[in-house]
């Protein structure tokens, strides 16, 4: 017989244990698959190397670029925070669909917002695994110590992580609604915001009509803030506050969108039909 305590536990409105159960599910996969762990760290490291060597080449040809080595490498690493954070949410979700596990999950006492919580935490873990090796390798290869950004680095990291969560949740919601046909949005979605985030160049470089769009993105404030710290040794609190405010709005909207799509999936009978 089920214990009464089990039944009470199953009825809890929010259970960290159920969130932890889903984290365990993804950590089991990572633990037994070294190629996956390697792949997580591989691309950020390759990006950093590529941009590092390009910068090294230009160092001898431009005094501006001579100051910019740290900027470009820091930008590459921070962009990867955004990219990996988005993938961390979307791929963890799609993995449930690939394995036709979604129906099983939702006949358990798991609540949709507990699934969302686990996706966000898993994204944080994946992002840390992804960018940490590249951040440390930048020192021996290019004499760039990204941690010289100091405490603002945490602010930049957190804002990009949360923005990646929002994009990842929207993509996951679309996959839930439209199936694996929408899978490629995992990669396409985030690259839409790349060119207008001012990763490698100031927002002022963009055409005038595009600049308001860019300033509607938290990432624009982060990368402008990063340049402020590296070029002028100034942490722009106003940029930080704007990024936080936008992230709060976007994260709330993306969570609401995911839950709405979950409700739609229940109306359309999609939870049992998902799979390859």
């Amino acid at each position, binding site marked *: *017989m*089920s*214990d009464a*305590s*089990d*039944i009470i*536990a*199953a*009825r*809890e*409105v929010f*259970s960290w*244990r*159920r969130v*932890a*159960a*889903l984290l*365990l*599910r993804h950590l*089991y*996969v990572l633990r*037994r*698959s070294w190629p996956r762990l390697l792949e997580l760290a591989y691309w950020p490291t390759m990006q950093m190397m590529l941009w590092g060597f390009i910068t090294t080449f230009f160092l001898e040809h431009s005094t501006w670029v001579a100051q910019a080595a740290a900027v470009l490498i820091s930008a590459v690493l921070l962009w990867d925070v955004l990219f990996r954070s988005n993938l961390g949410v979307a791929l963890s979700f799609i*993995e*449930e669909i690939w*394995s*036709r*596990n*979604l*129906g*099983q*999950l*939702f*006949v*358990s*006492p*798991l*609540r949709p917002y507990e699934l969302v919580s686990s996706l966000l935490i898993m994204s944080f873990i994946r992002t840390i695994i992804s960018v940490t090796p590249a951040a440390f390798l930048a020192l021996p290869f290019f004499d760039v110590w990204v941690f010289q950004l100091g405490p603002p680095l945490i602010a930049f990291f957190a804002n990009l992580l949360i923005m990646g969560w929002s994009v990842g949740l929207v993509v996951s919601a679309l996959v839930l609604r439209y199936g694996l046909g929408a899978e490629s949005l995992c990669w396409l979605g985030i690259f839409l915001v790349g060119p207008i985030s001012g990763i490698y160049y100031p927002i002022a470089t963009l055409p005038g009509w595009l600049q308001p769009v860019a300033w509607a993105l938290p990432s624009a404030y982060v990368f402008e803030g990063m340049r402020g710290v590296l070029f002028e040794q100034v942490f722009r609190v106003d940029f930080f506050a704007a990024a936080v405010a936008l992230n709060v709005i976007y994260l709330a909207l993306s969570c609401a969108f995911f839950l709405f799509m979950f*409700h739609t999936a*229940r*109306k*359309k*009978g999609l*939870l*049992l039909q998902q*799979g390859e």
Partner: protein
Amino acid sequence: MTKVSASPVVIVDNLTKHFGEVRAVERISFEVLPLSTTALVGGNGAGKTTTLSILLGLLLPTSGTVTVFGENILRHRHRVLGRMNFSSPYVDLPRRLSVAENLTVYAHLYGLDRIPERLRALARDLEITAFLNRPTGELSAGQKTRVALAKALLNEPRLLLLDEPTASLDPDTGDWVRAYLESWRRRTGATIILASHNMAEVERLCDHILIMRDGRIVERGTPAELIGRHGKSNLEDVFLSIAREPSGVAGKDFSAVAQ
């Protein structure tokens, strides 16, 4: 053993589900009593899986109500999901996780205590101990079915829903699963609802049968009642005679017939 109340475990009232123009389920009503095994029987597209999905709260109906353990499943599914479980060959467990890992994850999702002991006992019972540490994706169909059953029985459900529990199994494994389910139900006093095409399975396991066609319940009763009412020698023939009736005749609604 928990004291069993005589009030129905499941009450379905005037349940309807339309997908656009498609009437997947049309005004069905039935009750499932404790300790019973009820079969939802019907051809492809009859509405069995749709009905099961609504009972599980995975699918929202167009209209009607479903009460499970006295709770409205459409509004308060989380109050009862801990006492239910489900198995189907059409859903899976993550293939890369070992059997033990998958069962551990689900044990946590159900908030269970003493997980290692429970897993060991269940594995012994379902004869899956030998492959607990193998990736789930590498198992044969029969082994996967037993693992799926282990997941479905983890929380010792009071209500077990099964969608075609022996589909794609060889006769020997299918027989093992049926025998196991029979003894499990006797031992635990749980209630089972199963959807199946396999009339021999239904005749062996079920004490009440709902035959669906075109989203409606067109016949209901015990196996003996149905066989007697239709003048046939077995359920297979009853099913075939109903399936071959013109749809206007088979479409008559027996939902008002009392159990």
